[in-house]
């Protein structure tokens, strides 16, 4: 019987079976950021521990950093943000950890810089004190979001206590309609399997649609595994993966590259691998999705009416009603035409270069609708530089978008980028929880970058499939 990538990589990193029944798993790459690491460093200092493998940990600053150029001057205006930045600077210095700093132009969202620097490589175990660590699964890694105590475990031992997961293979068959993107594929599987459908599972994404995707698209798909309740999600490495990694800063070079390739090919799931569950989703049936509620599974194909409360199982109706009340939507209504106040293009889900390019296609010669505030926030400083070299910043600025510096920004609004009051935001991020974008009553509609760009121009939710960009093709 063949093995899945999950089993192969898990076994390779297993140090020992712990008395609790969990496994002690070696972590090949540990990423840290300013929000979930200071307490972890405090814990290891308190216990007098050292960091035995500092060369396997990399740091950046993303959550609290302002994205407006003026506000990035040190010391940061927000003294709490400044204190957090100083902590990560000091902690990385004290323990000999590489810090991708804003001053060096290397800073970005932790899940964006790992791949772009070539740190994220097939077959690794990766941990980060951030739930969207699942993003790195796009490269055929087992990548886990962890809490702060576990960040301390990883720093002090380079291992974590983990339970073995089941593996669910999700096959996306056929092909996608034009105007349907990786973000829609992600929202589709969460819609089908629910926000807790993945509990106890690792998700293995495959099928013709995933095979044809670029690495950036695969990252979008894996990024949202956690929103489906899965502990991690991954795609088996293939030629697309290898081509992406070839020549990156931290990728193996020369003879090492050849031996890496051989190893990376060997860790992909075997053709006859057994899975604990297999699900098939037909590409043709995926529409552009928009969330209408307060969980990422509360979404609807843009052409469909919002669901009727009574069609849900009794136990689910409370949260559906709560969502309708919070969002001020009515069952049965269309999501198309919903007026938008704010548009946010960015985040570790959709803040990469291809996302910025795709959204820009819908902005040529157009203006953001009157009354709409629109922000575009590149996922890393290096993406910002590349985008500026292509002139994307000019397209966005001419259309009336604010072109910002790299960071998490309005994905979780820990910096000055926040919704006000009841504003509705068309957002390319990954969470539409109550209050997620900084206002306790603010509302978030998750969608693809193309849908967000069109919403910015029209001032309301619009079906991107009708757009002339597609008829011209």
């Amino acid at each position, binding site marked *: 019987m063949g093995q899945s990538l999950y089993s192969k990589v898990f076994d390779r990193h297993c140090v020992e079976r712990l008395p*609790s029944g969990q496994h002690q798993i070696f972590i090949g790459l540990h990423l840290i950021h300013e929000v979930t690491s200071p307490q972890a460093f405090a814990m290891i200092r308190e216990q007098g521990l050292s960091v035995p493998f500092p060369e396997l940990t990399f740091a950046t600053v993303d959550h609290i950093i302002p994205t407006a150029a003026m506000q990035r001057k040190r010391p940061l205006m927000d003294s709490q943000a400044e*204190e957090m930045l100083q902590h990560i600077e000091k902690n990385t210095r004290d323990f000999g950890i590489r810090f991708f700093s804003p001053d060096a132009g290397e800073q970005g969202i932790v899940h964006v810089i790992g791949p772009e620097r070539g740190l994220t490589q097939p077959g690794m175990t990766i941990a980060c004190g951030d739930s969207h660590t699942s993003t790195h699964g796009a490269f055929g890694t087992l990548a886990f979001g962890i*809490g702060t105590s576990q960040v301390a475990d990883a720093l002090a*031992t380079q291992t974590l206590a983990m339970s073995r997961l089941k593996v669910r293979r999700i096959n996306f068959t056929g092909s996608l309609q034009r105007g349907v993107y990786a973000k829609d594929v992600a929202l589709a599987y969460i819609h089908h399997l629910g926000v807790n459908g993945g509990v106890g599972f690792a998700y293995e994404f495959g099928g013709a649609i995933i095979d044809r995707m670029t690495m950036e698209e695969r990252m979008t798909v894996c990024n949202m595994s956690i929103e489906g309740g899965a502990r991690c999600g991954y795609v088996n490495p293939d030629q697309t993966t290898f081509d992406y990694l070839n020549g990156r800063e931290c990728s193996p070079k020369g003879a090492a590259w050849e031996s*890496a390739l051989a190893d990376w090919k060997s860790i992909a799931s075997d053709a006859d691998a057994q899975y604990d569950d297999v699900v098939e989703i037909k590409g043709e049936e995926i529409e552009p999705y928009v969330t209408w509620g307060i969980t990422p599974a509360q979404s609807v194909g843009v052409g469909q009416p919002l669901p009727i409360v009574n069609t849900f199982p009794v136990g689910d109706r409370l949260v559906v009603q709560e969502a309708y009340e919070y969002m001020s939507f009515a069952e049965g209504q269309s999501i198309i035409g919903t007026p938008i106040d704010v548009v946010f293009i960015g985040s570790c889900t959709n803040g990469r270069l291809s996302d910025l390019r795709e959204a820009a296609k819908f902005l040529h010669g157009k203006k953001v609708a009157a009354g709409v505030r629109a922000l575009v926030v590149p996922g890393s400083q290096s993406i910002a530089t590349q985008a500026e070299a292509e002139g994307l910043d000019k397209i966005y600025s001419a259309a009336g978008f604010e072109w910002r510096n790299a960071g998490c920004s309005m994905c979780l609004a820990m910096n000055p980028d926040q919704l006000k009051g009841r504003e509705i935001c068309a957002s390319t991020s990954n969470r539409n929880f109550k209050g997620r974008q900084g206002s306790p009553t603010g509302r978030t509609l998750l969608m693809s970058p193309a849908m967000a760009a069109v919403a910015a121009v029209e001032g309301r939710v619009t079906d991107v499939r009708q757009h002339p960009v597609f008829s011209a093709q």
Partner: protein
Amino acid sequence: MSKFTLNEIRGSGIPLRGTDIDTDRIIPARFLKCVTFDGIGEHAFEDDIKGIAAKGGVHSFADARFRKAAVLVANRNFGCGSSREHAPQSLKRWGVSAIIAESYSEIFHGNCVSIAVPCFIASQEFCSELQNHIEANPSAELVLSVKDATVSFGGRTVKLSIDPGAQGQFLDGSWDARSGLLENLPAIRAVAARIPYLNQFGLSTPSKAL
């Protein structure tokens, strides 16, 4: 290994109804701007508390009847979303010593184990019954046994379930994973020495340039 084992939790209850309550709601992101967890308990559910107050209601975490509670009774998929340990830390610092719910997100569950807050599992019916019981008897004591996975209240004892791994960790004191992990440092080095990407090809790592 930590000497602190955990078998029994006693205290009054606090009901919190609703499915898919995410960690952004437990502790809104603005309270993550801190370098220690001190004082974070005061902000548990802050925005939900205000939201409900604005409509004339009272959130459980602002209800004086439950202020001394130690046992939180929630519903399905509790603690989903962000991996922030600030969420269980804020519950614990508020006073929650154990949770009973229908299900938990896995990261939240793991975070609770590492700070010694046992997460028990019960059916939807029982969670709702227990929530009603607490509302009717806010100061009544609940007694949770980790070993038996039971809750006793009002003269009855009801069987719950608990993740067996976590159960074992509370009973033998290994919930504090770090000390157990540290004991294996030689084995850790041995594994590191045979992982292909740490030896045969590896990161062409920029950290050497430090």
